[in-house]
């Protein structure tokens, strides 16, 4: 399974817990708000860390979506 993180910046209040739990996927900007890494897709251990970050977010501002497998071009 492949996943992708989404941040709702209107909910986020900059606690910064996500970057501690999923440092491979999330950085903080200079104001303390999360920035997703440029390559959005993840799987395996990284996706498990991301899931922990989603669960721990006090503002419920993070979501992990599963990305459908690539379809061949029609």
């Amino acid at each position, binding site marked *: 399974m492949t996943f992708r993180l989404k941040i*709702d*910046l*209107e909910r*986020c*209040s*900059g606690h910064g817990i996500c970057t501690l739990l999923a440092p491979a996927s999330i950085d903080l*900007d*200079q*104001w*303390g*708000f999360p*920035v997703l890494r440029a390559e959005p897709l993840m799987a395996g251990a990284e996706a498990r860390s991301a899931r922990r970050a989603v669960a721990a977010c006090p503002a419920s501002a993070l979501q992990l979506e599963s990305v459908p497998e690539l379809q061949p071009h029609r």
Partner: protein
Amino acid sequence: MTAVAARRPLAWTRTESPQEDAFAGVVGGAAILLAGPPPAEGAEDLDSHMQRLGTLAPALGNLDAFLQAVVDSGLQGRGGAGFPVAAKMAAIAAIGRQPLLVVNGSESEPASRKDWTLLCLRPHLVLDGAALGAAAVGADTAVLQLHRGSVGPAAALRRALEQRRVAGLADPAFQIRFGPNRYVAGESSAVRAFLAGSAAKPSPGGGHAAGRGQPVLVQNVESVALLGLIGRHGPDWFRQLGTLTSPGPSLVTLVGAVGWPGRVVEVARPVPLSQLLSQWAGITRAPQAVLFGGYAGSWADGRQAWDLDISRDALAGAGLTFGCGMVGVLPWDACGLAETARILEYLAGESSGQCGPCMFGLPGLARAMTGLARGSASAGDLRRLARMSTELTGRGGCHHPDGAVALLEHALTVFSDDVSHHLRRGRCDRAQRTPVFPIPTPDAESSWR
């Protein structure tokens, strides 16, 4: 069409009466939006409007043909983004529930006056378009959305609505609503939120259809006025104006060192900036710089922009924003960095505070720019400014931070000589000059509802 000259304060309000202060002109052909009695006569009444343009009944009687005419016209929304109007109407109709039509006259850009002018001078043109648009999407109510303090447009609309009631026109139920005087409150998702009883703040995505509740179709005043004309005269007539990819006339507002800031000019077919400014602002030599599209718009070097056509396509081709049609002239004796800093301070204060990067980043950006304008910034501050821009881009639920960053980046490019001068020698003499662009004084009552 003649222009009416009158007193011109630097920072106008929206409460002045149109008789004294409405200016209007046309370039590139004959006017269709601002055709009719001269601006000094104020709002055109229903009799004059009907005599000039004829009845709307044939279009109201064949709404399928009207919808097809809107598709064929290629009309792009005049609120700023240029989204195809027909696509928005089709998306709303596809929901299958009765929508609400919102005629968006918020015109939050502080220096833009095109919608204000249209509402003050040609209220029936707007109301005709609203009646036709509402019927076409099956809306029985149309909201006329204004900012608080839009006294002139509200008065013109009330008189026009009374004339229509007496004449017994087949209109939807019209409601005039007043939203907060905030920069982002006129954005369509913010208008939708306001009408639903929430704070008038933008929401991410800002899709055309509300998720739950009543679908809401938000269209800019100028777009709505054009709908009424397309309904009467058809798409081929409309396509004779404008350009192939951006058909129809466009209104622009002349701002800054233009003699009469706030004058609105109808661009029937694109003309070069030089012609627009010489004809309606008395400017015969390229100015230092031009700010296109609004306060979240883009700066261009005056000499490079001088021969540029004033159209959405030509500006986009030059990497510039047409936006709300603002054309702001920066004279040679003004400092572009100081003007940009003032505008950025304003935009920072207008963040709706929903997203952290915008809430904290825009004030940081504005402070750094103010430091640069005052000549107290170092090369390190400039690097920090660049880093803030990068970290802010695309980081809002709406495009407010993106607009501020784009303005800053254009300024650093167009005024690059000034940047090095300010870094080496401190503030330039030009930064002491009286400011060129009007900044609204903060609303005492800064409510979002």
